[in-house]
């Protein structure tokens, strides 16, 4: 096989040798072109590692961009909906960004590494849009995806494990804060962030330090029952805690083909990320107009009776179809059957009750259930330990 061919093969993350070793059931998936485990040994048990001990997830395939230069802050302020100026040094902010029509292209996190030095992590690839946005700004943008290895270390014992590994005083790190430690002659960056809604951290090192990091982490966490987890377990955790995902819960705006299929931040329940007071950002005009005119849809977290996951279900009000489910899961910790839905306005107010039309199959027999459901006022899983500082050792 020649080099050109090899370059088109699926990629392996810097942790691959270690991940492969622990991937006992050999169940692999494709995440952004990287060979990543769907599950390591048992989806359910992996999920519970996150909720009761420490779970480790390889998030190296996440797209990472470095934005530097005199206009870096102004640039990001124009690109994203929230006010980046309010993200302090060594702080992280979750945000979305829109096209001119105020439709969401993607969500991600912004790490402020310096006054005009940022890292943007996005689920979708963003090079093209980031460069278009750079017109008129004195910024430089580079794709760091291949230059940075990252692990999510999540769960109640995560702080203890990482402290055990030598990250002293980690318990003082506040949510959405970040900090640097020396590690193997280089800097390791750690942020108190994650996609599981639990106490947790994300650890960032150069690809060369990836294997030592993994080894030391698992060594440190052995007594705290550290376990790796794959994307199936992550999906349950993120639904339980109310995190949406591009391509699943909304169509990235610039990839839309059918008119009307995209969503605004308001329609995804992300009003709190939109700062209309900012003088200019992509989508502002349209979003102001939407505020005046009203949105077409409302994002709702539904608590559904019974235990049949409501994947791909229609949501009914009487005989009328008023929406569809985008993500659904039985949430083992909350012991609830949760779904994200897009409901036609004015439906979807907190406490409203509807019916989910669920189809499921057991032994080739298809059953249709009409399960009553209710709109929640927020994510069903939102533990105190997620926010507490100093982090409580469990």
């Amino acid at each position, binding site marked *: *096989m*020649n080099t*050109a*061919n090899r*370059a*088109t*093969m*699926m*990629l392996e993350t810097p942790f691959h040798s270690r991940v492969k070793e622990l991937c006992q059931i050999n169940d692999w998936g*494709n995440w952004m*072109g990287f060979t990543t485990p769907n599950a390591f040994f048992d989806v359910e048990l992996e999920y519970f590692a996150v909720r009761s001990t420490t779970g480790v997830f390889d998030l190296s395939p996440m797209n990472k961009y470095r934005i530097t230069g005199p206009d870096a802050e102004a640039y990001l302020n124009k690109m994203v909906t929230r006010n980046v100026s309010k993200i302090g040094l060594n702080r992280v902010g979750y945000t979305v960004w829109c096209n001119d*029509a105020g439709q969401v292209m993607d969500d991600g996190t912004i790490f402020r590494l310096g006054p005009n030095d940022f890292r943007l992590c996005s689920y979708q*690839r*963003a*090079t*093209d*849009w980031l*460069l278009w946005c750079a017109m008129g700004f004195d910024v430089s943008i580079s*794709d760091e995806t291949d230059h940075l290895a990252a692990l999510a270390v999540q769960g109640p014992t995560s702080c203890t494990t990482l402290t055990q590994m030598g990250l002293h005083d980690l318990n003082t790190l506040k949510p959405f804060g970040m900090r640097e430690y020396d590690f193997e002659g280089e800097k390791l960056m750690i942020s108190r962030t994650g996609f599981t809604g639990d106490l947790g951290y994300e650890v960032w090192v150069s690809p060369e330090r990836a294997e030592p990091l993994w080894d030391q982490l698992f060594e440190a966490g052995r007594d705290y029952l550290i376990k790796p987890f794959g994307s199936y377990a992550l999906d349950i955790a993120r639904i339980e805690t109310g995190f949406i995902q591009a391509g699943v819960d909304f169509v990235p705006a*610039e*990839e*839309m*083909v*059918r*008119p009307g299929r995209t969503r605004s931040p308001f329609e995804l329940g992300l009003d709190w990320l939109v700062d209309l007071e900012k003088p200019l950002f992509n989508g502002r005009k349209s979003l102001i107009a939407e505020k005046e005119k009203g949105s077409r849809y409302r994002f709702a977290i539904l608590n559904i009776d019974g235990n049949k996951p409501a994947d791909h279900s229609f949501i009914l009000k009487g005989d009328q179809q008023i929406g569809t489910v985008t993500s659904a899961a039985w949430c083992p910790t909350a012991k609830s059957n949760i779904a994200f839905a897009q409901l036609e306005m004015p439906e979807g107010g907190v406490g409203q009750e509807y019916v989910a039309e669920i189809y499921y199959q057991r032994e080739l027999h298809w059953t249709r259930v009409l399960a009553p459901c209710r709109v929640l006022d927020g994510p069903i899983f939102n533990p105190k330990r997620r926010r507490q500082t100093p982090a409580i050792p469990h």
Partner: protein
Amino acid sequence: MNTYDAIVIGAGHNGLTNAAYLAKAGLKVAVLERNPYIGGATVSRELHEGWYYSNCSYVCSLLRPEIARDLELPRHGLQVVPFGGGATFMRNGDHLGSYFDHDRFYREIARHSKRDANAYDRYTADVTKQTRLIRPFLMRTPPDPTSLRPRELLELANFAKAFLNMGEEGLADTIAFWTKSVADYLNEYFETDVLKAHLGGSGIIGTALGVYSPGTAYVLLHHYMGDVDGNVGAWGFARGGMGAVAESISKAFRSYGGEIICDANVDEIIVKGSKVRGVALKNGDEYLAPIVVSNLDPKRTFLDIMNEKDLPSSVIKKASNFKIRGSSGKLNIALDGLPVFHGMDPKSPLMAGDLHFTDSLERQERAYDDWKNETWSKDPYLDMMIPSLTDPTMAPPGKHMMSVFVQYAPPKINGEDWTAEDKAGFEKTVIDQISNYSPNFRDLILHCETRTPKDIESEVGLTEGNIFQGELTFDQLLFNRPFPGYAQYRGPVTGMYMCGSGTHPGGGVMSAPGANAAREILRDLNKPNTVPGGYADD
């Protein structure tokens, strides 16, 4: 007495499709074919022992699935097999591979430019918007915008609605897409020459325009609007060569009681009292029918087999002005083995796809300059395939059949007919270009059939060898195809119809013109319609 309900002139795929639907409606139909074999430009011919050449059209995507299914073409032997990928070879020894697998294609483009690889998703979405706009109209008769009849106004409103649904911004993009050059269009998305060249080729195939000419972005769309098994934009081979398409339609036609008469060279459509009466052959035979449908291109139809006195002078003028230009040539090559290409794994799926050797839009445009100067391109754009990598019936085991479509070749060289030396020079140009990227290619050639536009014209009857039966520029599309006032398949004489690719929606082995024409004929006869409607895109 040779009397029929309808006569179709030309056994190309559209003629046969048209005839099949008329026969299905219970008409007594005869198809008259000049050649001893059927198919027109959809033929497979054994021109070297053991090798079958799809020696005109060579790939299949646009054939309307509604028709294939309705006429039960698979039962009549048609099998369309998709091929994976394709590649453009670069002068620096590298290439750009076009992989079917989305993620693999991303990584391949990213080898050349990460930005372009990322922009490709936006490009795909935007082009798909355009294909979704046009596809619903492929199986419909275009409305006449100058008419005030309710049916026309209703259909026109349908058209308008589809366009207005795009929204202010979407419609602005649509106008741009339909009128701008493929180069300008691609420049708005990409920075890499080879990627632009790879995609841009679809904007000039069969077209007497360059990649920098306004209007070529639409030609690209024309190549994207087909599908194989619902994969919009995918292309495939007909197993056994393109002749299998015509063969299967002819079987469907015969199953409805139709009759095909080969070696029947039509001299004239007989018109009496401004009504069609039938046709007269060159050998003096006459076939009578109140309906005559021409599968020939508009120039042939109106300037060749119709009598000037039977036609309004405006139609003669329109037919004379109809743009149907010879711009393409073809080489069909029997190979002793599989050629090896620089930097390409012989087992790569790219090998089974469309291969090209022009790695920049500028080179493609310069190829067009040669055509304007009435000579063949010295550095042509080739659309080369080895169908025997997908379809083993095309060549003996271990051997291969190669089809090389060449853009550009003019109908005449400096105003003169092609000479044998010209043809040899043309052949050498093409073989040299391929040899630059494949060291063993030349030695593998067992037989080469070289076809200039003139050859295609004299064999198939397409004026200047134009593969689309008329340029696919906006002035000759929709209600302007073949020309304004005659876009609804009806000719200027009662009982005379057109069903070739010169009519809406144009060429590319779609069979839609033939089917649409049949629907109009049946409407005029007050017969129940046998032609299926189009599938709606979801």
